[in-house]
Structure formats: C-alpha cells, structure tokens
C-alpha cells in the first residue's frame, strides 16, 4: 500500500475507499512527547484541509488537517484511551489517528509520495 503525505505532515494510506490518517514520523519528532490529542467523533465529515484533530506536547499544540476529504469511520481507540506515547512510538503505524471513508481518490493521488515527502522534509 502506498503512503502519501501532505506539506502539513499528515500521512494517508488507502485501502479501498478507506483512508488511514496520522502524523508523520518527522512531525512526531518535531513535536516531542505527546501529552494530549483530540480526535474527531465517528460520523464527522471533513473537506480536504479542514481542522480535524489537535495534537499537543507540553509546549506546543498543532492542528491536524484532513489530508483528504471524507467521513470519519473509526478513531484510534488507543489514543482515545490516552495512550499518547503510541503517537511517539509508532506515528506511521499503531499511532494512526482516524480512518476516513473518502469521497475523491484524485485528492489522494495528488499528494506527495514517500520520496517526494522525504525531499520536502530535507528542505525544511
């Protein structure tokens, strides 16, 4: 499965019409130890680029934007259970945020692939 990325450091992985979304390893490192995250409720819909979630360390807070339009069909129970460390330990794996039922696959295709994102991060 390909993973794609946004300039705001969200990642998306597509499985049929369900996209798993989280924050990139780079973003998690920049943020430091996560102390709080707020995920949207199942059923909420977001347009691409809309504020979707919040993730916080002790000293900073970052908005997480919907990398792709869709409806929330699942939110990570580990995070909801306040296991913040999972976001630091496996940001691009077990520390995913939500699953979105997507509306428009073209939005996904237009995002950066792994190599393009790596280049982008290098330039920051």
């Amino acid at each position, binding site marked *: 499965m390909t993973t794609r990325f946004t300039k705001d450091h969200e990642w998306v992985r597509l499985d049929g019409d369900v996209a798993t979304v989280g924050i990139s390893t780079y973003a998690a490192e920049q943020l*430091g*130890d996560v*102390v*709080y995250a707020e995920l949207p409720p199942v059923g909420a819909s977001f347009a691409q680029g809309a504020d979707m979630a919040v993730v*916080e*360390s*002790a*000293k900073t807070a970052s908005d997480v934007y919907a990398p792709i339009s869709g409806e929330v069909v699942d939110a990570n129970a580990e995070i909801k259970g*306040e296991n*913040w460390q999972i976001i630091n330990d496996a940001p691009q794996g077990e520390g995913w945020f939500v699953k979105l039922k997507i509306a428009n696959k073209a939005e996904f295709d237009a995002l950066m692939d792994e190599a393009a994102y790596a280049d982008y991060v290098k330039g920051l």
Partner: protein
Amino acid sequence: MSYETTSGNKGLQQAEALIFETGHATGTGVDLPEPKGGAYEKLGGLGRKAALELPGFSEPETVRHFVRLSQKNYAIDLGLFPLGSCTMKHNPRLNERAARFEGFADLHPLQPTSTIQGALELMDELAHWLMELTGMPAVALSPKAGAHGEFCGMLAIKAALEARGEAETRRRVLVPESAHGTNPATAVAAGFIVDEIPARDDGRVHLDDVVAKLGPDVAGVMMTNPNTCGLFEPEIKRIADAIHEAGGYFYCDGANYNAIVGKVRPGDLGIDAMHINLHKTFSTPHGGGGPGAGPTVLSAALAPFAPVPHIVKRGDVRELREHSDGTQAFGRMCAFHGQMGMFTRALTYMMSHGSDGLRQVAEDAVLNANYLLARLKPHFNAPFGERPCMHEVLLDDSSIKPKGVETIDMAKALLDEGYHPFTTYFPLVVHGAMLIEPTETEPKRELDRFADVMIALAERVNAGEVEFFKQAPKLAPMRRLDDTRAARSPKLRWKPEANSAAKQAAE
C-alpha cells in the same frame, strides 16, 4: 552535588511539605469570638453538612510555611531579572505604603460618592498623567490587566464601527506574525477575524505589507511598538495614516511603552487605542503573576465609546456614571472601577519621577539595553543587532545550536549562575529567541557582571561543554522539572488518596 541531608534541607533552603500533608482541620491561626449558634439560624436548611478537611495552622506555623516557600523564589529584589517584554524593574516601597493608606485600602467601591471624593480625584489625576504622557484625549481605567486592556481597546473599535454601521462588514484585523499571543486571542474574543502580516527579515512591519492587506473589510491593525523584537517601528506613522485612510483603526499594544515614556507620545503616531501595563512601565509589583492593571488610552474617535464607569465632574464634586444607558459606552469591563490598588501605586511612581524622571526612565532603559547589546554582540548572534535596539536585546540560537546547546540550556545554566534568565523562545519569528530586558533600574556594574556571565557561557559552548548545559541547573532549589509528566496526567490539586508522587519519590 548529590549531597543528601537527613532533613531534606539544603542549608537556608528548607524542604517544605504541602499544608495538606502537615496541617489539620482543627488547627487554626485566628482567634474569633465564639458564635452563639443555632437559635437564630436563617439558612433554610441549606447548611454545609460534610467536613471540608481544609487544613489550618497556627500563626507561627503559617508564617514559617510561607517564608520557607518564598525562599525558593527568584525576585527582582534579589537580582537582575532580564525577562524580555516583562519589564521587571524595581518596585518602590513608597508605592506599597500609599496603596495601604486606610483612605484607599479600606474604601468600598459602592460607598456613596460623598465619601470617596479623594479616590475619584486620584483616578482623575492618574488619568491626567496617562493622557498627557501618551498625548491621547481619553483613558478607560477599568481594565484589569494588559490583555483586558487590549480587549477594551478592541471593543471600543468595534463600537465605533457599529456606530458607523460597519461592524458587520469590517471584521478583519491585521496582526503581525511577531505579535504577542494575546493580540490574536483578543481580536478573536472581540469577534474579529485575524489576518496575519508575515514577518520580514529585518524584524519590522512594512507599510507595503499592511497596504497590501487593506480593504473595505478591515477593522484595524494591532501592532506592538516598540515591537516584540525590541525595535521601534520606523513606518508606524505612515501605517497609521494608511489604516485611517482605509477606514480602519490602529490598536497599539503598549507592553513596551517603558522604552518611550516621556520621549514619544503614542498620540503623535496616529494610534487610536493603547493599553498601558501599570505593572510594567509604572512599576506596580508583578507579584508572581499578578494582579496587573491595563488602563487603555483612546483617541478622539474612540473616546465616546469608553466603558463605564465614567467619572463626571460637577463643579468641585465628582460623581460616577455607572450605566451605559443614554451614552455610547460599549459596556462594562468588570464589576467595579478597576485596579485601584494599582492606580495608587502607579500615581505614586509617576509623581516621584516627574516628567523629567520618566523621560530619564526611557533613556536609561534603552541605554542599558544597547550597552548589553554592544557587549554581547561579538559573542552571540543578534539578528537585528546592526541597528540600535530599544529597551530589550534580541539574540537567537544560531551561534549555539550548531554546537548542541539550545536556548533552554542557556537559560538553565543562568539559573546556576544566580540569574533569572531572559525570555526564551519569544518572539516566535526568531529561532530560539533569547530576549533580554535589563530595565533602567540596573546599575552599570550589574550589567557588566551579567554580560561577563553570558560571555563565559558562550565560551563554554564554544569549548564543547554540552553536558554542562544539559545537566543545568544543579545549584537551583530544584533540577529540571518534567513538563511532559505534568501535562500527560494532570495532577492539579492535592487529594487524600492520590498523594502518591511524593511517596513514590521517597521510596
């Protein structure tokens, strides 16, 4: 330094438990007459039933507890407190005495006006000083802190727009990226939409960038002058003119007024509203986080909308207008008349300095900062250091970060040297900012001593002593505290059952 004592004390530093751990509900430090009880009770059966379990102490125990706590604090009275944008200057004790005069401290805000003529006169005098110093025709005294003053100014702007029938159409407020966080938070609280003016490499706001954002939907601009980088905005007058021409208003954040008091009148720069932090420029004590006071001066365009209460003079008698009905006042900032205790202190301070002394305040504040800039510039990167600064020196981390030392590490090393550090990581527009504001109440030898310490630290960075910085502080009352632990599972009050961290630590 891992020397442990049996008592937990470190010489003069006394270990001190929480009152909840040592006090008890039957202890008390007051002797009150015994109430007669029961017979006349008019509580309608709503009396408090369960025990409160609030611990009490005798007076000697109470005094000792809080004196022991106090000894864990740094303070201006102890040494240089160069916290940028906070103006930690000496707090004259005459101010404290005046505020405690029975005729001010033992006055109720709702006493009949015949019994408070001196208090109203004092407020008028303070208003006169603030208006003359700023060159502005009106002032609202009631805002209770700087951010509350910002809110007052933005509500005055909103009311003026409403009076013009433009409150619905003009909702955008321009705020430079370098602004203090209260500015955007205030604009939003007042119902506006924030539009950020991006930062430029020279740390200043450019007329072109403001003009590019002007339009019929702009309510105004919120700028700080001198700005958060410690620089006077050279284009401020032209920016004000452009804003006015576009039908908007100019809010100035007066947090850094100390740099220009008596030298420049904000009214001459085209400003419509500016709050004045009495706890900064006019030396009322910071008290570990407050109380502040934020009187807000207003231009002729905004003056009619000043919130109640207003002092109204009829002959020699002063009255209070406490309701906005029949006026254009936008409302009320707080229950009473503002921070009277701070008015007393601030007026005492102003009268002590006089117009000549206040001008000297600004000059010495700016001189002290530029002296530190001159001494530190060869050893640190000062991003805008090619020109004079105002009352504070801005350094960044570009000379230390490549060597593995961060701004936070410099700050913690200063703790071991016996200093409160500079402001860290603000303004955000500079990477790893170190913002140093010495204020005018520092003698030259204190500045030299501080500069020597900073330079010695820079040399340690260059010598690669990274661990020295990462381990700091070692000599402060505590080692580095774990912010992440505090935020992940917040423990915000003592609870009888959950009092575990202390025990854990002891085990």
